[in-house]
Structures are given as C-alpha cells and as structure tokens.
C-alpha cells in the first residue's frame, strides 16, 4: 500500500518541492499506540488533509511534525532543516507553525499580544532585553480583520474570548510569522461557515506563497473545499493517501471508520398535545444577547444558529444559570425561575453542555469515570457516600455507549480532543435533565460517533425532554433539529422548519449574515 | 503512662558514672538568636572539651514544643543529666515535671519553678537595677533632675526575663533619685535590626526624650545606631538593662564618661554555664546528690558603666 501511495504522489502531487517527509513514525504512550508506523510527505504550495476517527492519531502526527512531541521511532524530516525538529524553538527555525486543537492563547495577554506571541521582538534583535513589538499597531488590527476579528480591540484581554474567537485568534499568528509549513488542527471545529471563508482566503494566500499546509477537520465538506490530497489515518496507521479530485466523502468516511455510514432519520417531535413548554424565555438580556424570546416544547429539539459572536452562547449560558440574566424571565414548566448558578439550574432540571471544553468541560486531574459521574454523583451516593460499584458499572456502560476510546481509569486529559468531547457529552446526558442546552455538542467528534450522539439526543427528546442545540454548522442543525432559530447581533432574526421547502444551509447563512427574510 | 512518676529523679538517669569521660550531659538551650545564648554554647563546649565529658547541645528556637522533642531525644541518647534553659517559665510546668522525673535537671538562665533539681539564674531584677543606678548617676552628673525615656522591649512572648529587667532598671533609676516618664514602649525582639527600627519610629514620635532603654544590648546597639552622628538626637542617650555584650562594652569604654552608651548589666553567659555544668557533672559522678542543692542560686549581678568598664571589657571574648 505504501508503494502505491508513493507512486500516486510522484504522479500527481508535486505541485511544489518536498516540504516534509515522515518515515516509519511511531508514537507510543503508555499503553496506547497513537501512531504506528506512518510514512507521509507534504509538498510546498499544497494543502494536505488528514482525516481519521477520534483518536486516530491526527493531532499526534501534527505534534510530532511541530516538535511538540518526539517520536518513539522513526523521524520526520523538514526540508531545509538538517535534523528532526525537537522543540518549539527549532520548529520556529524550521518554519513549522502549528495551530493546536485547543488553541494556545495566553489569557492574561491582550488580543494584540497574543497575535504577536510567536514574534515578541521587533526586528531581528535577539537580546532578551530587547524592546518588544508594538502590539496595538495598525498592522495588528489588519491582521485581526483578516481572520474576522476586526471588531475586537487589540488591547482587550484574550481570556474573555469564546472558543471560536480563540481559534481565529490563534490563526491570526500565521500572518505575522514566517513559515514553510502550517498545521491547522481542527481550527474550524467551533467556527461557523462565515469564518471558514476567512480561513479559505488565508490558506489560498499561504498556498500561493508556497507554504505546505496540513488541515485536520471532521467536516468533510471543508476538507473537500480546501484540500489537494487527503491522508486517512485509522488507529495510528496510515490507510491511504488520495487526491481530492479522485475521491468523495463516502469513500473517505468508509476508509476512516472501516464501514459505510448509514443515513440517519430524524424522528418527529413527540406530539404532546397542549403541553406547556419545557422552557419559555421572554425578553432575555445578558452577555451579547439583546432581548431574546422563545419556547422549547417537550420532545422538541430546537437549534440555535448564528455566526461566531452572534450571542448564541450568551443565550445558552444565561438560561442555564452559568451567567445571570440582566433582564428577562425564564419559565420552566410554567414556573418562573431565577437562576443564579449552574447548581440552581441543575436542581430545576436544566443542564448546559459547555462549548469551552478546555475551560469548563472536564476536570483535568480526573479520569473518565470521575468526569462522567461528576454531575450525577449525588444520585450514585447514599448519605453522601459514593456507591463505588454502581458508579463503576454505569461508567463502563457509558464508555461503551459513547464509544470513548479509553477506559474508566484513563485520564480524560490524555484523550484525543474528540474523545474528550464524548466524555463531556456523556456526563451531561447521564444527568438526565428536563431541559438540556448543548453548545457545539459535536465539536471535534468524528462522523461515526456523531451519528451516535445524534441518536442519543433523539432518545432524550423522545422522552419528552426539551433540547436546545447551539451549533455553528448549519447542516448539523438541519439534520438534527425540529426547529431552528437564527441569531444575529444578539437578536433572534429568523425561525426555520428544516422540513420546509427552501430551508437549507444557504438560507440559514443568509439570515445569520443579514437576513432578507421576514424579521420578527 | 509514659512518665509514671512526678517526683524529681533522685540520681543520674543511667546510674552514677565513676569517670567524668563517661558522663553525657544534655544542654537544652532556649534559642540561639541572640549572642548571649550563642556564647553559652561556645563556653559549654569548651568546658566539655577540657573536662572530657560528652555534651549534647540543642537549641529550641524559643519554642517549648521543639525543646520537649529535643530533651526527649537527649534522654533517648543516654544523657545522664540535663542542663535546661527553659523557653517558658509558666508553660513548661507539666512538661518539665515529666522530664525531671526521669533525669536530674539543672536550669540555667530561665527556670521553671517547682520542677527540676536546681537552677542557676541570672538575677534579672538586680542586674537591671544596678544598670539603672549607673544611668541615673550619669544623668545627674549632666545636671538632669528628671528624664523622659522610651523602652525597647522583648517580644510578646517574653513572660519573665524582660519584665524583670525592665522593672529592675526603673527601680534603679528611682533609687538613683531620678524621676522618669515613659513616653513609649515598643518591641525590638531582642534583635539589633528590629531594635533599630523600633527606636527610629519611637524617636520620630518623641524627639525630646533623653534616654532609650533597651532590655538587652543588641537592641540598645540598634538604638545607638539611630542617634549616633545625628544632630537632632545629640541629647539622646542609650542604656541597656542587661547582657554586657562585647560591642556594647566597647562603646562604653570608647566613650568613657562622656559617652552616649551609659550603662548595661552583667549577665555573664560563661559564669552561668560554668556553674550549671559543674553541678551537673557532680551529680552524674556521684559527687553530689540532687537533694544537696537549693532550688535556685544566682550568678553575680553587677552594673557596668564608664567607671568600672575596664574590669569587664575583654576585646577577645566571644560575647
């Protein structure tokens, strides 16, 4: 197979010269073979996608290439650099720039300082006491505008940004550094379609400048829109490298998960006649939300769509007690409630799956078992004492149900991004809330597991619970939800029924940008 | 019960040793943070070397808990007798009853009354008084009929020594016929640097005082640093109520009867150490029985001023 791949590259790929070459690369963690003998080449002026299920080893490969980790066996050669890249400093010399799956942003720095983080000095001055660059310059602002963050102030704290904005912020670094290889590890996972255009532009510029680009994403449409070649990983092994032009999404999916994916039908909303809404929100203000009203009925899955920063997460956080509402009322099953903390919300049967896995998704020192049972622990306890057996057996079931790659004793922080997300989703769905808000629930989750999670969400709804799904992926909402609300600038500006004629991705995006549909 | 009896031990812990070189003496010092205590150690080690007995020396950082642990460790190591400079007069009563039930205890400097075999103490009251008298005389010679003063005291934990030295010095002033007014009292922790800072501040608040009293020489030396060479304090004098530290004696000698360091009291670490060790060795070798000793005996108490300085100043002493 390797031979075939070589052939293939020699025939079609060389849009440019060789940028890097991995030979027999293995990476073993205690008990895990994250990579198990991978040979892969990248060329300048070319976009190479790496696809694979969660835990296939995509991020691991990226980290090896960027010198964040060193391979257990084999090596990766970067053209023009005589020995393997071993650390970040060498990566910089070799011209490898990596956008991590969890963007490495310094929360206590301003947006501008984060843009320039990889290039603290002005000019070539290498003295440690050299003057630092001006991080509030016009140039900085332009760089930010290019990645769709033009509305941010350069001197505002980066810690206050949402995950989507953090991704784009880390991406902005590409504009101020010199590099030959650029790695985008799920940079688009929590960004909306609009930002993908910015990324496309940036990639086009980089490509023209001769950069070799590696793109990791679980959104196959993006992969096909952007990439020249696709490498498929499964369980740490390179399965195949294909030219985009020669393949299609179904083939890639099949290669990734080893089987074809069955199409999934959305069950109808449970028809509970005249039941009062699970949750009714009226004129809600808070965060970037400016007067939002909507209902979620029992058995209904409602989608909330909008661009990054449109206020979706603010709504989600405010109605789940994560953040206090400035104004407005929230009624749960007919009863008006004041939600002053997530704990209170949970007592009322309201749960919130965060979009910010890194910050508040899971506890880094906990293993999968502990993380999954964090919310429901009181229910597994008698008189405050945890029933260990019951906890263990339930955790095992959950791990199977959610296809988490790892055991109950594996530390969640050592899982791949997608597997972490599964743990977090499992934690909340296990809590069995009356009303659950899922903020980017499938962020980073591969196509196979995604279908599985959709099914579980459907099951929750089928039991008469209310579900609100916030997502940046219009397609996801269209296939998952019974009703879709679109937000723009903190207001709900449209409502769609996915089954209606003419309700498609374009319609949602158009509404989110500047609707010419009927506003409310 | 670990210590079944509460009556003091009637003989050395491991039986009477015929030879001095077999004797083990434990010396539980209160602390080493002041030169006075450090000098005691140097002196004791010298004596032990000369006489050939084994000395276990530990200091407790002014903490009864540490001292208890150290005394216990000494007993475990086969000490025959203990010399103890107690960390707390009142607070160690039960502790010392327990310890003393197993081993003869001779106190040095600070004792716990009602426990142990005997004590060799400095008579802080008298030492202070002697110094006070000398200071009163110097002021009278200057033509003063009354003075204003500020006092540098020990820390809040100073339950016994400091108050006695203070009272003694004030008694001495009265005895010398010099009425006084205390303008302020602040702790200098018996340390030179802390004393200097406290003196600075008190002087800023009371620039018209005549005297800064330090309850030991270290603090008085700190105070001396403040007034020395400063015009605005040219009429401020310094005195200590005790210790007789070398640097202080040097100042007294150097200034003579015009000097600004008026007086101190002799609290000789070497005299006390010598006496306490002698008692201990005698008991350990059977030359004396614990019951032979009075509960307390005092070391010589004198005041040192410009007139008798030559008797006491030795530039080569450790302390």
């Amino acid at each position, binding site marked *: 197979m390797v031979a075939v791949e070589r052939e293939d590259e020699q025939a079609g790929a060389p849009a440019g010269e060789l940028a890097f070459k991995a030979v027999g690369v293995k990476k073993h963690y205690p008990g895990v073979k994250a990579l198990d003998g991978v040979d892969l080449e990248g060329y300048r002026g070319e976009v190479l996608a790496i696809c694979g299920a969660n835990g296939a080893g995509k991020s691991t490969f990226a980290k090896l290439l960027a010198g964040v980790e060193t391979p257990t066996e084999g090596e990766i050669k970067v053209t023009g650099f005589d020995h393997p890249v071993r650390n970040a400093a060498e990566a910089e010399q070799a011209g490898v720039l990596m956008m991590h799956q969890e963007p490495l942003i310094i929360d206590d720095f301003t947006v501008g300082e984060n843009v320039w983080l990889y290039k603290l000095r002005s000019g070539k001055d290498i003295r440690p006491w050299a003057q630092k660059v001006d991080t509030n310059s016009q140039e900085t602002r332009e760089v930010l505008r290019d990645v769709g963050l033009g509305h941010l102030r350069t001197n505002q704290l980066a810690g206050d940004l949402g995950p989507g904005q953090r991704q784009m912020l880390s991406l902005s670094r590409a504009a101020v550094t010199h590099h030959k290889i650029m790695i985008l590890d799920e940079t688009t996972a929590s960004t909306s379609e609009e930002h993908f255009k910015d990324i496309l532009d940036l990639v086009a510029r980089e490509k023209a400048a001769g950069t070799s680009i590696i793109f990791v994403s679980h959104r196959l449409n993006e992969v096909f829109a952007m990439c020249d070649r696709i490498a498929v990983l499964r369980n740490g092994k390179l399965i195949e490298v294909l030219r985009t032009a020669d393949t299609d999404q179904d083939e890639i999916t099949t290669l990734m998960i080893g089987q074809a994916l069955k199409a999934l039908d959305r069950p109808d909303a449970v028809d509970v006649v005249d039941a009062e809404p699970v949750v009714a929100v009226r004129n809600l203000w808070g965060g970037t939300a400016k007067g939002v009203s909507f209902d979620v009925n029992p058995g209904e899955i409602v989608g909330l769509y909008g661009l990054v920063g449109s206020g979706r997460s603010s709504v989600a956080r405010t109605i789940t007690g994560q953040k206090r509402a400035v104004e407005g009322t929230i009624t749960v099953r007919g009863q008006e409630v004041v939600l002053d903390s997530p704990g209170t919300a949970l007592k009322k049967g309201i749960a919130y799956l965060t979009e910010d896995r890194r910050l508040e998704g899971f*506890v880094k020192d906990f293993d999968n078992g502990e993380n999954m049972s964090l919310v429901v622990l009181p229910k597994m306890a008698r008189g405050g004492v945890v029933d260990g057996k019951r906890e263990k057996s339930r955790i095992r079931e959950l791990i199977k149900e959610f296809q988490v790659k790892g055991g109950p004793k594996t530390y969640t922080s050592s899982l791949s991004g997608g597997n972490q997300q599964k743990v977090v989703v499992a934690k909340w769905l296990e809590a069995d809330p009356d009303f659950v808000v899922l903020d980017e629930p499938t962020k980073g989750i591969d196509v196979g597991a995604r279908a599985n999670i959709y099914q579980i969400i459907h099951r929750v709804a089928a039991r008469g619970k209310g579900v609100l799904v916030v997502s940046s992926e219009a397609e996801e909402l269209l296939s998952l939800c019974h009703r879709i609300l679109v937000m723009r600038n903190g207001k709900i500006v449209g409502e769609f029924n996915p089954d209606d004629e003419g309700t498609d991705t374009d319609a949602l995006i158009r509404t989110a940008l500047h609707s010419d549909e009927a506003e409310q | 019960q670990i210590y079944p009896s509460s009556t003091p031990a009637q003989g050395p812990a491991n039986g009477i040793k015929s030879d001095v070189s077999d004797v083990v003496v434990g010396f539980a*010092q209160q602390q080493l943070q002041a030169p006075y205590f450090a000098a005691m150690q140097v002196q004791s080690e010298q004596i032990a070397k000369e006489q050939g007995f084994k000395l276990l020396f530990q200091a407790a950082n002014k903490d009864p808990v540490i001292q208890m642990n150290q005394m216990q460790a000494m007993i475990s190591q086969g000490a025959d007798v203990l010399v103890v400079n107690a960390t707390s007069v009142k607070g160690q009563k039960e502790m010392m009853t327990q310890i003393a039930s197993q081993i003869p205890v001779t106190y040095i400097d600070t004792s716990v009354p009602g426990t142990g075999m005997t004590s060799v103490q400095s008579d802080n009251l008298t030492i202070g008084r002697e110094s006070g008298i000398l200071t009163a005389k110097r002021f009278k010679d200057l033509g003063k009929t009354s003075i204003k003063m500020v006092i540098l005291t020990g820390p809040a934990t100073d339950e016994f020594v400091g108050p006695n030295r203070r009272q003694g010095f004030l008694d001495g002033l009265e005895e010398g016929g010099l009425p006084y007014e205390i303008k302020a009292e602040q702790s200098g922790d018996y340390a030179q640097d802390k004393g200097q800072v406290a003196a600075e501040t008190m002087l800023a608040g009371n620039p018209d005082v005549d005297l800064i009293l330090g309850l030991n020489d270290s603090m008085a030396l700190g105070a001396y640093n403040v007034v020395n060479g400063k015009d605005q304090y040219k009429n401020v004098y310094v005195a200590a109520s005790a210790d007789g530290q070398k640097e202080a004696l040097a100042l007294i000698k150097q200034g003579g009867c015009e000097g600004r360091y008026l007086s101190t009291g002799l609290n000789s670490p070497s005299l006390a150490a010598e006496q306490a060790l002698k008692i201990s060795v005698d008991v350990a070798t059977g030359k004396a029985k614990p019951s032979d000793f009075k509960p307390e005996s005092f070391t010589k108490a004198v005041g040192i001023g410009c007139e008798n300085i030559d008797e006491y100043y030795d530039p080569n002493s450790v302390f």
Partner: protein
Amino acid sequence: MTATATAPTSSPDQAEENRGSAVVDWLKSQYALYILVALLLVATITRGSVFWSGTNITNLLLQMSIIGVVVMAELIVVLTGGIDISVGSALGLAAVVAAGLFGGPSVLLALVVAIVIGGIVGAVNGWLVAFRGLEPFIVTLGMLALARGLVYAYGNGIPINPEAAPSFARLGQSTFIGIPVLAIIWLAVVALIAFLLYRTVWGRRVYAIGSNINAARSSGIPVKGTLWSVYILAGLLVGLGGWIFLARFASGTSTAGNLLELEAIAAVVIGGARLSGGYGKVFGAVVGTIIFAVIANLLSLLNVSTFLQDAFRGALILVAVTVATVQFSRRRKSDSTTPAAK
C-alpha cells in the same frame, strides 16, 4: 511536559487488566516514600539502636500527633487550590483559650472550646475565600497575625495553665496497647479525612474544585459552599490540634503552633500534593509528616550542632527532592489541560 504524567498510566485499551503494573505505577510516583525509606536507613545505620528504641518511637509518635492533624487540615485546603498559613496561630489560639476559658476545669470542656475556636477561625477564613473571592494567602496571613495577636492579648504573653493541667498531662502520656493515645487520635483523623476525600461526594467535589474550578461550577457543584466547608473542617481539625497540644504540654503557651504552617505546607507538598490544587494524597501527606518529624528527630539524635541543624535540614530537603525525583515531572502548573503539552 509533564503534567498528566501523574497517573494517566493505565491505557485505554488494556483497560484494567494489569493490576501488577498499577502497583508499579503507584510505586513509581511515591517519591516521598523513598525519601522516608532513605531517611530511615540513615537513621538505622547511624543511630539504629537509639532510633528504633521504644522510647524514641513513642516520642516520635507523640511529636507527630499535633502536626499530623494540622497537616490533614492543610491538605484539604491545598487540594482546593488554596493555602492556609493561619493554622499555627489558630492552633495556638484554640490551645490558649481552651486552657483559659472558665479556668480550664475539664479536659472535655477544653476539647469543645478548642474545636469551636478552630471552627470559628476556619469559618471566617472560608467565608472570605469562598464568598468574597479573596486570595487565601492574604486572608490567612491576616488571620495568622490576628489569631497570634489574640493569643498574646489573651494571656499577655504569659502561658496559661488550665486547672485540669494534671489530667491533661496524664492524657498526654497515656498509651493504648503501647501506642500513645494522642497518636491514635491523629491516625483516626487521617482515616476520617481519607474516607471523606476518597469515598464521599464531598471529597470528589473538593478535588474537582481544586483541579478546575470552572468545570466544577458549571457542573452544578456548589463551589462556594464546598469551599467554605473545607475551611471550616480545616479549622475544626486545627482546633483539635490545639487540644492535643494542651494534652501534650498541659499549658497554653503563647508560642503554641508557631511556624507550624510552614511545616504543614511542606509536609503536604513533599507528600506530592500540588499547591495549585486538585492533586494530592492523604498517604503522601502522612509520609510527608513523618519525613519532617524523622529529620528533626535524627538531627537531634545525631547531636548535630544547632548551628548546623538548619543547614542540614535544608540540604537534606534539597538533596532528597532532587534525587528522589529523577523521574519526577509533575509541575506545579499542571499542564494537563492540554494533553498536547507533552
């Protein structure tokens, strides 16, 4: 590179099979234990007969009982990512007031008083930390000074001997099947804390808060309440420590508990806990307690000059942690957030 190091040892795939390797893994991370073993070896070689004598072991146990209880208090605070530097002063206050209130007529009354005082101190600390969001360091620094000041003020610096001093003294040196009662109390406290931390919902919450306070909050954990309860419990333990102090010394001295905070934190940290919270074991903290007690005891037994004792202790700590952690990689800023970090 580091962080996760800890423990994410077991692998996803070979899930729980290999028990054997778990033991090995556990042993690998027990560097505190090695320090202790090395110390005991040194003790045995140099002063074996004295060190292992019944008297000395009894002394050691007694010496550890006070600090041991305080270490447990410090541990739970450190697990939340906090720090309590007021434990020493609070212990002093509890001891002094318990000795002095109503004249200290009874051992049991003193126990109640000591625990109440400790609890009050802990409740104030905890309230400021949990509900006012203040830095634990600065809050407990204030409390350190305040409580110590109250100790001085209560007795004007003079130790307070309770009326029941003889009963205290008797209790302090009584043994049960050869083990000092005070040490038994300490061990009971250790067992209690281990149970609370490992077996209860509360314990899980404590770890969660220390590791990721945001995740804890958004998971519906009552963060403030739990934090408060931690400081209160710590206060109660410190109060108990004050009472043990009384039992041991039969007197409330104004230096009671002085500098205990440093030793308690040191024991917790050398026992492997992370000061930024979320990681730390009861067993490690106990080993840490023993390490420092043995060091002090050994230096005494070897009759190391007092001038040099501090130097030796310091050098010993430095050498021990350096040597024992050839493999030790867990950094304070656990970077496990990004497993990437490696």
